[in-house]
């Protein structure tokens, strides 16, 4: 069991230290984030583990706000004729009374950094490189711990990354990482940990384990997400409402409501999977549903399925009849087998088709979800998935799942799995008497998920 690597997240106030922690721990509820300076006034830790083994401990610290005065004060701590090094000077400062008064917050940060293996120095890349930041770095450097600058808010248009790079290089900090805690790049965490591994050679094995585990989890999340979307699509494709023609508008609006609620369920499941709150995304209203009156009786898939069923019934009946034939020593000359086959076929036809034929005779029509709505659902969920992949856990705004303006999504061929689903009303959770655990349904869900995943 290795000791977890301890990192202090330090920096000026209001640069997004708690946000960085939220994103790195994928924990939207960690600490408190607000626009006010000195929101975090305590030191709080979080632990990252792989397979139950703690690998990394991150500590959120209060922001440094008065580094210029502190540096001034520190330099005056040397008694005449003595020359202290950084950590010794800090030790004297932390014993003194100002560490409990004017510089109480700063003392907290320094104590924590001294207790850690390294520090992540968070920078708001939109800020100009002011003298106070340089002094801050000088104070932090006197802890004698490696510091890795992390440029936050680099996706903002006003960032001053080149200035910061130059200033940091002048201070001897050449390794730095771009990591926007609100919109982290896909490989942001990997880069961060790799840079850390360069600074802390001893911690390389555990950091590499962390990187591998996060990659594996990212992949697993993608596959789970594809399956959730596939379930939504199968549910909607197999959905079927039998209505009398007069109730058509009502039925269409009911169907629309059901589909919309089902989509919202999928959105919520995706948010949960990615560790976001239910209110972090909302699907906008579906465009007006074109009710698809499926004359499903002659759908090729339905006919094929009917053929298989009736064939199976005939075979089963014939087998039973043949058994009878055998037991009586072939005296019936196959009559029993023939009778069995006819009875079996008829029974299967009536069982799998009877109620729908009856409905047809009674003048009912069957309403299903239009192809283009299925396409739209797939598109919207995929967009949401993309947005979630690029969303940091520090993001506060809500994702809007919208309908794209251009019409290209209306075209294109639907995957086979959805055509199959059309002929299996029992596959939809929106229909009564659903049989969701049917092996055939799962097979189609998996096939569709694989297609969504590769696309």
């Amino acid at each position, binding site marked *: 069991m290795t000791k977890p690597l301890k990192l202090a997240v330090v920096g*000026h*106030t*209001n640069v997004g230290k708690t946000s960085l922690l939220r994103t*790195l721990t*994928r*924990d939207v509820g*960690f600490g408190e984030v607000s*626009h006010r*300076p*000195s929101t975090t*006034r*305590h*030191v*709080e*830790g*979080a*632990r*990252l*583990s792989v*397979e*139950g083994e703690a690998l990394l401990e991150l*500590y959120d610290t209060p922001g440094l*706000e*008065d*580094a210029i*005065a502190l*540096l001034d004060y520190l330099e005056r701590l040397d008694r005449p004729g003595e020359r202290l090094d950084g950590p010794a000077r800090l030790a004297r400062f932390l014993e003194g009374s100002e560490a409990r*008064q004017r510089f*109480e*917050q700063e003392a907290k940060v320094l104590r*924590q950094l001294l207790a850690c293996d390294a520090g992540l120095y968070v920078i708001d890349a939109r800020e*100009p490189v*002011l*003298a*106070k930041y340089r002094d801050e770095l000088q104070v932090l450097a006197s802890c004698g711990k490696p510091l890795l600058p992390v440029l936050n808010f680099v996706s903002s248009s*006003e960032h001053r990354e080149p200035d910061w790079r130059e200033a940091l290089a002048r201070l001897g900090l050449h390794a730095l990482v771009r990591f926007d805690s609100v919109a982290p790049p896909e490989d942001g965490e990997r880069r961060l940990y790799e840079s850390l591994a360069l600074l802390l050679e001893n911690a390389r094995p555990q950091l590499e384990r962390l990187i591998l*585990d*996060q990659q594996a*989890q990212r992949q*697993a999340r993608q*596959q*789970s*997400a594809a*399956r*959730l979307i596939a379930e939504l699509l199968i549910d909607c494709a197999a959905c079927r409402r039998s209505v009398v023609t007069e109730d058509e508008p009502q039925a269409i609006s009911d169907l629309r409501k059901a589909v919309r609620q089902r989509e919202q369920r999928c959105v919520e499941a995706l948010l*949960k*999977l990615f*560790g976001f709150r239910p209110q972090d995304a909302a699907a906008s209203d579906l465009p007006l549903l074109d009710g698809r009156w499926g004359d499903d009786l002659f759908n090729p898939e339905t006919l094929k399925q009917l053929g298989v069923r009736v064939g*199976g019934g005939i*075979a089963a009946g014939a087998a039973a009849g043949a058994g009878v034939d*055998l*037991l009586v*020593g072939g005296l019936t000359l196959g009559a029993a087998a023939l009778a069995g086959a006819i009875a079996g076929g008829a029974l299967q036809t009536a069982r799998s088709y009877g109620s729908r034929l009856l409905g047809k005779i009674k003048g009912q029509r069957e309403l299903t979800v239009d192809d283009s709505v299925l396409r739209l659902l797939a598109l919207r969920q995929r967009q949401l998935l993309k947005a979630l992949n690029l969303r940091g856990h520090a993001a506060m705004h809500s994702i809007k799942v919208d309908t794209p303006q251009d019409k290209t999504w209306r075209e294109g061929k639907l995957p086979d799995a959805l055509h199959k689903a059309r002929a299996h009303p029992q596959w939809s959770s929106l229909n009564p008497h659903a049989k*969701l*655990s*049917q*092996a*055939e349904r*799962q*097979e189609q869900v998996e096939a569709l998920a694989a297609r969504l995943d590769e696309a």
Partner: protein
Amino acid sequence: MTALNPLHKLWLTETVRLREEHAGPLEDLEANRLARTAGGDLPTRIQQRALHLAERDGLTAALGRWLQGARLALVLLAVVALISGAGLAFAALGNGLTPVNVFWALGSLLGLNLIVLTSWALGLLFAGEHSASLGRLWLWLSEKLARDAKAAQLAPALLLLLQRQKLNRWAVGVLVNSLWLLALLSALVILLTLLATRRYGFVWETTILGADTFVAVTQALGALPALLGFNVPTVEMIRASGDSALNIESARQAWAAWLVGVLLIYGLLPRLILALLCLWRWKRGRAALRLDLNLPGYSQLRERLMPSSERLGVNDAAPQQLHAVSGGVSELHSDGALLVAIELDDQHPWPPKLPGNVKNAGILDSRESRHKLLEQLTRFPPARLAIACDPRRSPDRGSLALIAELARSASATRVWLLQAPPGQALDAERLGDWHAALQQLELPFADCAPLNWLESGHD
């Protein structure tokens, strides 16, 4: 209830997953805690949790009953197999009064078996996982015999679990082939018993085929059994049996041995080999069965059972209140007006055009510039001091302390919160923070230049 084997555990885990997927999540605080304490990797913890929930909700007991039902169904099917096997033998040999037509006998012993075997093999090759009506019959029977509503998800769970490794076909293959093996064994035993205790004459009959065909067919069929030591009737015997049943002992024995040999080699042996093959594949696949952690149901459990991040809590608490900076004015004799800016970047043109009597103290940023100005102000306090700040910076304690210190060395101070440079907008929330902080320092502030005030002392 015997101890659960690994397959049963996986099965119960899958059942619990299906239940949660269809009926909403179960109350699982205790189960999660226990699973976390037990440790191990994620699949182990998921199983631990599922087994606890299954035990609590009676699923384990339902599984026991289901297995019992399955065994009962198996016994029923075995009995049916035994009886039909016996029936096959009786039907093949008839009542002994008339001579046995060897090819009819062979047909009724092997015919159905071969047809079903072919259809099973074709199903295995082409139809995938959903064939084998005998297998379905068994599942259906076991469900009926288990008579338990809780077991509703058990059968689908097993099917899904096995389907993932494509094990259904092998499991069903073991079942189907063993049942047929049993039926054929029973047929063999009855056949031997009948042959041992009754006297049968053997003939073959034809209208359009020649005797040579029968000789060839008989010898071809008997070739393989002959390798195992079963007699094959001689050509003369075969030809003679075409006319009437030979009443010689050696001919009867030869035909009987041929019949038994053919049944053994073409009936029992293939079924035995297939049953063993399926058993081998089944055992191998069973050992490779794992939970599919990519299923949404399982991946959502990860954070609860093996959190990749946990909060450690506060280890250095927040103070009751932060060190407060206070404002104030200088009581010393003061004179003149001064404008100073704090931490401006190059986007603001500085200084603005100043009236003649207003001095410019430049931009304060570094420690040295601060010291210099404060020294100077202490010696020659200004009567009016305007401090320009960029409200895009955050109002931190250091900046506020500096503003307060500057204010303390002047008789009157105003803060000028600069406008955003062209093309940019101020963040309303941050501006609000500045207002609140300056109000606390009791300093007047405005967003326009207080140049008139600096110049003349009134607006």
